[in-house]
């Protein structure tokens, strides 16, 4: 029973957040598809969101959660624009490989 009622230290949440963030960075580094790279960015954003929520819990500070809300909004907007860019790039280059898209001009 004590196990069931055991509280979780916030340290663990933070460690999870750090781990997710690092995995996001690794994803950015190793993935070759531009869409997956973009997903890694979303992963990193989520990791950061988690730490915001954790600190909101720590300090009973409502603004931590509101911050997460705003981050979500920005992430949604970013996803829309980013994916639109990906489509535009694909039209011109006909590839999604990040390594092939290495020039800023057409």
């Amino acid at each position, binding site marked *: 029973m004590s196990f069931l009622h055991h509280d979780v230290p916030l340290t663990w949440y933070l460690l999870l957040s750090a781990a997710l963030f690092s995995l996001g960075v690794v994803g950015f580094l190793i993935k070759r598809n531009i869409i997956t790279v973009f997903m890694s960015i979303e992963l990193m954003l989520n990791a950061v969101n988690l730490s915001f929520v954790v600190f909101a819990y720590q300090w009973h500070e409502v603004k931590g959660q509101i911050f997460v809300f705003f981050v979500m909004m920005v*992430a949604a907007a970013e996803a829309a624009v980013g994916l639109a860019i990906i489509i535009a790039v694909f039209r011109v280059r006909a590839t*999604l490989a990040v390594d092939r898209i290495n020039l800023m001009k057409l």
Partner: protein
Amino acid sequence: MHLILFFLFAGFCLAGAINLLLQTHPINSALSLIVVMTSLAVLYLLLGAEFLAIAQIIVYAGAVMVLFTFVVMLLNAGREERTLGSRAAARVGFPAVVVLLAVLATIILRAQGLVSAHLGAGLTNDPNGSNLVVLSQVLFHELLLPFELTSVLILIAILGAVAIARADGSKVDGAERSAEK
């Protein structure tokens, strides 16, 4: 209970994230990411952020990830090609990630005064209080203007996305059609 749920969904999170990295087909990665996000929503719930948990599922797992899968299908993205890659990424990036993680972990572990989380607590310790009420009071009073501005931001983002993705010129039109096929 809390501990079990934490381990369960933290495990889902990590597993999903690792799977995201391991899968070579983007659609699999997208599905893994949905797992991560849903698990995160549960973790938010555990931390007393009910509103965010729902928003996470609706906005992220729902809207954003659906967008991702749409694009994957629209562009008919197949398996990743083996490309040359980047030496800098291997030689600089991975040690840097290790250092980053080590530094973050050090800081987190060294941090004093972090409390433990237990179920039922959140922004308010009042058993009759609601986290949602606290949140909405701040959001719609103090931060009303920024909140409204986000809607403008999203509107602009939609317009921008339409403008960027719109095919201009017949040549590009053809490319789009071939991409759609």
